[in-house]
Every structure is written in structure tokens, then in C-alpha cells.
């Protein structure tokens, strides 16, 4: 049982604030992804949970035990590093056995656990090699095996796949998901790759500028962004935004059209590119670039002077310069407060 509770954790590096009072609870055996652009504080948060960084403020609890004053070795965690950190002077076997030997596990048990995790990561034929004789993908497998062999309550992963090439990344992603689900550990996984985040996570914490902007299930983060930032960060292409003018009584004037929206005086209209379809009435868009992608066509256009993207069915032939009318799916329209940047329910 290892629930992780983070209470008001903040971190300053001199004058720079990397984390502003973060609160987060990660359930036992949950796969939590910390997602954000570089410099958003996601790695700092992970390192604070690992004990490699001391928080300037706040508390970290793992499995009902306050750990923020404990060294990494006393926290019941294992970590997988971005550059693998496989010990170059030890064989793969000794790398995986390293933590077990430190924990004074008996020889036969070390042997059993190393072989089992090596098998799990498909590296049993590499046990006698040194890291210099391994490819990047193999090193990554060793690093994961080394973490798993400890049978930790919590596994922390710092962009573990970012140094692999695209094909390998895809393969490792699926494998990691299976292995970690089976190991029944709580996992915190840091990445800047939203596809990785969506595919792996039970929940995603989207981070920006040292804050957690939204922590929710992947589909929820995608469909109902809690803030404008989340909509503009997640999704490829990201969400479209258009200024809206209140017509009163919950009606909004957007690019020459009238939409039903929230009560209030100021709001911004938002719609995902795939939630648009050509229609007789709707937003009139002047097509700039057409990119046929196979299953669908990506259209970059201008609506009311704003850049606007739509993902349309590839059946329809569209040429640049053409003016098309795009109707948004009504229940997919989202509204954001231009002041606070937060979603308006």
C-alpha cells in the first residue's frame, strides 16, 4: 500500500520559483503522469518525491509515512533516470542486483529476483554484459529491471523513453504499461510527450510554470481542459480559441455567429479541430494550408483574423484560398474566462 500525498510542496532555486505550493494525492497502484513543457517543474516535483531534492516548503507522505526529511534510500522508492544511469563498471546482472545486495538480500534470492526481472524485461541473455556493450533500448530495460527488482512501493520515472528512437519508444511504452500494471506499484512518470502521457496514465497532472493546472483522467483532460493552457498544450493540433462578445442572456457572438454559452460578461470560445465539420451554417473560414494526412485532412484557415485549424474527413476536396463554413459540434464547445484563463462550467 503506497498512497502518495503531497501537501503544499514548494521549491525555490535562489530567486527562481520552480514549484508554487503543489498539492497532489496519488492513489495506491495508480499510474500518474506529470506532463508539461520543459521548465514547468515536473522533474523537480519528481526529484522532491525521490528525496534527491529538498522542498523549500511542504510535506511528502508515502504510504502513510512522512518522508520529506528522509534520504532516498529510506523512502521505499525506485527511480528510472532519463539517461538510464546504468553503472558502467558492473555487469547487467550486478546492476540489477545492486539494490538487493545493499538491502542484504541472500544470494539465492538475489539470483532469483535478478533472473525474474531480467526475464520480464527480456534481457536475460544480456546478464553478463557491461553497459558499454548495450544499445540505448537495452540500457533502458536494464534500468527498469533494476528498479523493479527492488519490488518497491513506488516507481519514479523521469522521461525514461525520451532518449530512444521513435519506433523503440512505441514498443517500450506498451511494454512498460504491461509490466508496471502487473507489478502493482504506484508509478509517477514524468514526460513532455502528451501521446505518451495519454496512453500510459491513469491520471495526468498537467503542469505549467510551477503549478499543477489540472490532474484528471486522460480523456477528461482532453475533453474538458480546466484551463486555457491545457487546451492549448494537449491535442495535436491543439484547441482553437476565438474571442466572444456577450449578447446577454447566455448568448455569445463569435466570428459573426451566435452561440449559446455561459452567463457572464466575458468569455473565450474554444473548440477542438476534430469537433468541426463542413456545413451550410457556421464559422466562415478562409483556407490557407491543406495537409492531407490519410485518414483525415488537416486544414489551417483563418476565422475572424485568428488562426484556426480543423481536422476534416479526407473525402472532401478543399483547396487553399477557398472559403468554407465549419459548424462546431454543440456539446464539444468549451468556454474560458479570459481573465483567469480557467474553464467556465
Amino acid at each position, binding site marked *: 500500500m503506497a498512497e502518495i500525498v503531497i501537501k503544499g510542496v514548494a521549491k525555490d532555486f535562489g530567486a527562481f520559483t520552480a514549484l508554487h505550493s503543489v498539492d497532489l494525492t496519488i492513489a495506491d497502484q495508480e499510474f500518474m503522469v506529470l506532463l508539461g513543457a520543459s521548465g514547468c517543474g515536473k522533474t523537480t516535483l519528481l526529484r522532491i518525491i525521490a528525496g534527491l531534492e529538498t522542498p523549500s516548503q511542504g510535506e511528502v507522505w508515502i504510504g502513510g509515512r512522512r518522508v520529506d526529511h528522509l534520504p532516498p534510500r529510506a523512502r521505499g522508492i525506485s527511480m528510472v533516470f532519463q539517461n538510464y544511469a546504468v553503472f558502467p563498471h558492473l555487469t547487467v546482472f550486478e546492476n540489477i542486483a545492486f539494490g538487493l545486495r*545493499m538491502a542484504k538480500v541472500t544470494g539465492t534470492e538475489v539470483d532469483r529476483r535478478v533472473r525474474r526481472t531480467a526475464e520480464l524485461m527480456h534481457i536475460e541473455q544480456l546478464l553478463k554484459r557491461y553497459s558499454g556493450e548495450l544499445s540505448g533500448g537495452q540500457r533502458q530495460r536494464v534500468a527498469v529491471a533494476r528498479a523493479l527488482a527492488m519490488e518497491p512501493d513506488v516507481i519514479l520515472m523521469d522521461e525514461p523513453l525520451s532518449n530512444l528512437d521513435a519506433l523503440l519508444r512505441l514498443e517500450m511504452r506498451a511494454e512498460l504499461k504491461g509490466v508496471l500494471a502487473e507489478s502493482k506499484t504506484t508509478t509517477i512518470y514524468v514526460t513532455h510527450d502528451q501521446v505518451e502521457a495519454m496512453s500510459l496514465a491513469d491520471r495526468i497532472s498537467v503542469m505549467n510554470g510551477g503549478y499543477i493546472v489540472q490532474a484528471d483522467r486522460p480523456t477528461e483532460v482532453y475533453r474538458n481542459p480546466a484551463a486555457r493552457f491545457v487546451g492549448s498544450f494537449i491535442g495535436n493540433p491543439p484547441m482553437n480559441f476565438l474571442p466572444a462578445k456577450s449578447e446577454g442572456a447566455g448568448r455569445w457572438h463569435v466570428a459573426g455567429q451566435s452561440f449559446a454559452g455561459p452567463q457572464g460578461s466575458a468569455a473565450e470560445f474554444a473548440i477542438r479541430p476534430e469537433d468541426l465539420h463542413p456545413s451550410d451554417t457556421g464559422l466562415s473560414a478562409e483556407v490557407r494550408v491543406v495537409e492531407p494526412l490519410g485518414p483525415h485532412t488537416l486544414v489551417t484557415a483563418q476565422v475572424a483574423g485568428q488562426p484556426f485549424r480543423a481536422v476534416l474527413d479526407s473525402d472532401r476536396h478543399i483547396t487553399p484560398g477557398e472559403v468554407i463554413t465549419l459548424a462546431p459540434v454543440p456539446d464539444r464547445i468549451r468556454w474560458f474566462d479570459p481573465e483567469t484563463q480557467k474553464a467556465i462550467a
Partner: protein
Amino acid sequence: MTDTSPPPAPQLEARRAGRFLFYAGVALLVLWVLVPIWFLFVNALSAPSEVTGFPKRIWPSFDLASVQFFLQFQGVTQALWNSVKVAVLTMILSIAMGAPAGYALSRFDFPGKEFFRVLVIMTRAFPLPLLALPLAVMFIRTGLDDTVLGLALVHAMLALPFAVLITFSLFSGIPVELEEAAWTLGCNRLQAFIKVVLPLALPGIMASAVFAFVISWNEVFAAAVLTIENRTLTAFLLQSLNVSPLPLKFAGGAALVMPALIFIFAVRKYLFAMWGIANR
């Protein structure tokens, strides 16, 4: 480029001249180092009568009379033994003090770090003759004068800046993540250092130690000023060589140069790495 036509004549000539200059420069530098060494060994390993002879032979006659005479010369073995003791002690002192400083510089941020680095190099900016007199006075007062430890302390001071900067670059070349991984796998700071950093840094530390050994072995000024009875080989030879016969001088010179040459040759790979050529 598929154009294979020869470049115009002046350009070709300039290139040829450049190449000639380059190889001439290389040859000159190599001769600059090798000729004295060759001279030393040929004369040391030849019969005393051949030393003054001309022309010289390329290979020495391997007559060990000079060397034998040198080794039997009153006080030489004692001086040789003193040199070894001082050099080994210097090696231990400079690594014991230099490696922790190098580690701290590479792993921690502390106020005055840059200033400290400059300061380390600054210790080499004081000419030894300037320091020798006050040091001698202080050593006499504390009873360190004419002792192996006293001289080793001075030599360690000379070798320390190198030990600090070399180990600094050595430790900087070892990713912090390796240590952090060790911490998450159950090590405390010291265990992680011993189990992960040390095995990786050891060849370089050895090289840096050898370098300290050579610095001490070759040092003559402090050795001559601070010792009387317990002279090291350099100080002993400085004192007695100008009054001894020529074959003996060559044998002494060879004895001085040889350990340095052998050691530096053995660790040359790491010396390059230390200066950051291979490491970064």
C-alpha cells in the same frame, strides 16, 4: 566535390610549404625532448671511457660500470630511498587532500566556489624561493626541518593544485545520476561514492597520484633548502654532482629521469583525459 583538377600553382606551393613547416615543427619538438634523453642514456649506459669519446654510438654499449659506480657512491642509495619516501608521502597527501576538494568542486555549489578555484591555482603563483626561507624558519621551529614529512608537506603543496583540478575534471566526467541511482538503491552518500564513483574514478586518481609522485621526485629547490642529512636524490645530486666525474653525472641524470618517464608513459592516456581532451 568531384572536381579533381589540381589547384593553381601558388596555392599548391603554399600548401606544400605549410606541410613542410608543420612536420619540421613536429620534428623539432620531438628532437627537443628526445635528444637530451638519448644523450643521457647513451652516456649512462656506456663505459666511462666512452663518455668523453666522439663520435657517439646510437646504441649504448651497455657497460654498467658508470651505473655501478654511481650506486656505490657514498649516500646515493640513502638519497634514492629518501626520494621514494618523500614522493610516496607526497602522493598520498596530495590525493587525500586533493580528491575530496575536487569532489566538492564538481558536486556542490557553495559560495566562493569560483574564488576557491582561482585560489587553488594561485598557490602556484608564488615562487618557491620566496616561500623557502620563511618555511625553513618555521620548519626549524616546529622540528619539521630535515624530515621526510616536512619535505613531503611542501611537495604536496606543489602537487595539490594539480590534484584538485585533475580530480575535479575527473569527478565532473562521472554523471551525477549514477550517484543518485545508487542513493535510490539503498546507498548513503559514502557508500555510493565507494561503490560507484571510486571504481570509475580510480584509474584517473591513480594517474593524478603518479603525477604528484613525479612532481616530488623532480623537485630540487625545496629539497635542497629544507634538508641536510635526509637529502633526496635531486638535492643530493645537485650538491655532489658538480664535483664528481662526468660518467657519474650522466648516471645520476638517468636515475632522475627514468622513473618520471616510465610513470608518465604508463599513465599518458589518463593525463590526456585529465586535461579534458578525451573526457569532454
